[in-house]
C-alpha cells in the first residue's frame, strides 16, 4: 500500500467547548432570513406578511453590500458593558443614512396601503422625529400606536448594528448579563437549541438588533435569569420544534427553537412564522419578553 493508515485520536478526543458568540455575517444573515421568509410564506396563512418581510430582508442584505462601510468603533468600553454603545449611535450619520437608503429601497417593495403610508411618513420625517424613531428602536421599545413606522426604523438599525457587530473580535466579547447581547446590549428575539456538530443541544440567544448569537445556559429565563419555575408550552405536541419558554418567577416567555428537530429554523423569520403560538400564549396571562420589532403588540 502506498499510504499508511494512521490512528486519528482527535475524532474521539473529547467534546469541543461551545464558543461564547457567533458574530453575524450581515449579508449571509439577511439573505438566509429572506430565503426562510420566502419559504414560510408559501405555506402560511401569514403569507402576505412573510413575503413582505422576505423582500425587506433581501433589501437589508443588499444594503449591507452597497452602503459604505461604517466608521470603526471607538476602543472597547470594558467595565462589563456591551462593546457597542447604542447611545452614541443615535447621532451617527451612518445610521441616519442607512435609514434613508432603506426607505428609498423599500419604496419599490410590494406592501399594503397602511404600510406604504407609514413608509412615506418615515421617508419624509424631520431630523428630530427621525432621532425619536431611531432612539426608540435603540432602546428596544415601540410605542403602542407606532408599530408600522418603527418597523422600518428597526430594519435600518438591524442593518447598521449587524455591520458594526461583524467587525468585532469574538474574543473581545464577554457575558454582560442574562438575556443581554454582549455585542450591542440588545434584547434577544428568540433562542435556539443548536444542532450543528460540536454544539448540539447548546442554546444560543439571537440579538434582535445586531443578530449576534450568544451562548445562554438552557432551562433559564432570558428575561430575569431565573432557573426556577421554567416551563415549555407548545401547540398540541411535546415534540414541537417551536416552544414558548415560560417563567413563573417573572411571568414572561420567549420562544425557543429546536434545530435538533428542524435544521432550517431562523431566529427571526420563524418567530414571525409561528405567530400562532403567540396567539395561543395570549390566554396564559404571561407577557412576551425579549424584543421583536416585526411582532410588536404580542
Amino acid at each position, binding site marked *: 500500500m502506498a499510504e499508511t493508515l494512521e490512528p486519528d485520536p482527535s475524532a474521539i478526543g473529547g467534546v469541543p467547548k461551545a464558543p461564547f458568540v457567533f458574530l453575524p455575517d450581515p449579508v449571509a444573515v439577511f439573505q438566509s432570513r429572506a430565503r426562510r421568509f420566502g419559504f414560510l410564506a408559501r405555506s402560511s396563512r401569514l403569507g402576505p406578511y412573510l413575503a413582505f418581510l422576505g423582500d425587506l430582508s433581501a433589501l437589508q442584505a443588499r444594503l449591507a453590500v452597497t452602503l459604505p462601510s461604517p466608521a470603526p468603533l471607538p476602543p472597547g468600553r470594558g467595565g462589563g458593558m456591551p462593546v457597542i454603545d447604542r447611545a452614541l449611535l443615535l447621532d451617527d450619520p451612518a445610521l441616519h443614512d442607512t435609514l434613508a437608503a432603506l426607505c428609498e429601497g423599500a419604496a419599490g417593495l410590494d406592501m399594503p396601503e397602511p404600510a406604504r403610508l407609514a413608509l412615506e411618513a418615515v421617508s419624509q420625517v424631520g431630523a428630530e422625529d427621525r432621532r425619536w424613531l431611531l432612539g426608540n428602536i435603540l432602546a428596544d421599545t415601540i410605542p403602542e*400606536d407606532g408599530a408600522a413606522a418603527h418597523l422600518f426604523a428597526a430594519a435600518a438599525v438591524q442593518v447598521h448594528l449587524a455591520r458594526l457587530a461583524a467587525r468585532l473580535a469574538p474574543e473581545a466579547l464577554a457575558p454582560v448579563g442574562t438575556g443581554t447581547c454582549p455585542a450591542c446590549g440588545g434584547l434577544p428575539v428568540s433562542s435556539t437549541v443548536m444542532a450543528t456538530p460540536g454544539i448540539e443541544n447548546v442554546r444560543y440567544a439571537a440579538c434582535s438588533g445586531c443578530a449576534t448569537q450568544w451562548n445562554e445556559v438552557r432551562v433559564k429565563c432570558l428575561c430575569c435569569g431565573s432557573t426556577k419555575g*421554567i*416551563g415549555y408550552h407548545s401547540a398540541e405536541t411535546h415534540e414541537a420544534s417551536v416552544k414558548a419558554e415560560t417563567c413563573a418567577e417573572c411571568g414572561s416567555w420567549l420562544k425557543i427553537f429546536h434545530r435538533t428537530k428542524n435544521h432550517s429554523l431562523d431566529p427571526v423569520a420563524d418567530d414571525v412564522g409561528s405567530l400562532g403560538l403567540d396567539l*395561543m400564549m395570549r390566554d396564559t396571562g404571561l407577557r412576551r419578553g425579549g424584543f421583536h420589532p416585526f411582532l410588536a403588540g*404580542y
Partner: protein
Amino acid sequence: MTIDLSRRGFLALAGTGVATTTLGAMGFGAAEAAEAAHVRPFKLVATTETRNICTYCSVACGIIMYSKGDLAAGETAELLHIEGDADHPTNRGTLCPKGAALKDYVRAETRLTRPRYRAPGADRFQDIGWDEALDKIARALKDDRDANLIEKNDKGTTVNRWTTTGYLAASATTNETAWLTYKTVRAMGIVGFDNQARV
C-alpha cells in the same frame, strides 16, 4: 406614554391609529385573523425540562429530563426523554451507554420501588415495610458482627476488623453523604467498602 404634538402629527401622517400589533398597523390584519382562526382549536401542552445528575457513577454527568405536565403549575410530570446536559462542564452533553439508557431504567416495569424480601428457601420476593426491612438488616448485621469481628491480630494489637460483611454505597451522593457513609461503615470495622461505582 406621552407623545408631544409633533409626534402625534407624525404618527397621524404614518396612518397609525388604534391598531396595536405590527400586523394590524401594517395592513396585514386579514392574515393575522386567518392565523387566529386556524389556531383556535389547538391546545397548548406543557413540557418540563429538569436538570439532574446521572445516578450511575461518580463521574456525575449532567442530564436534562423532559417530562409531560407543568411542574411549576402543580401538575404531575411523566418522564418523556433524558439527554446529556450540553451546559454541564463534566460531560458537555455526552452520555455513556448506561446514561443514555436512563429513561428505560426509570420506566422499567421491574424497577425496585419499595423494600422486598425473599425468605430462606422461598422462590419469590414479598413486599415488606421499611421498618421491618431495616430491623431485619440491623439484626443480620449485628449477628454477623458479633460472630465474626476480629478484635486483635496475631501480635495482640487491637484491629477491630469485620471482614465477613461488605458495604456497597451509592455514587450519586453529595460530599456530606459520602463522608457520613464512610464514617459509619468504617466505625463498625467493615473492611470491604466501596463508596462509588467503578468507572
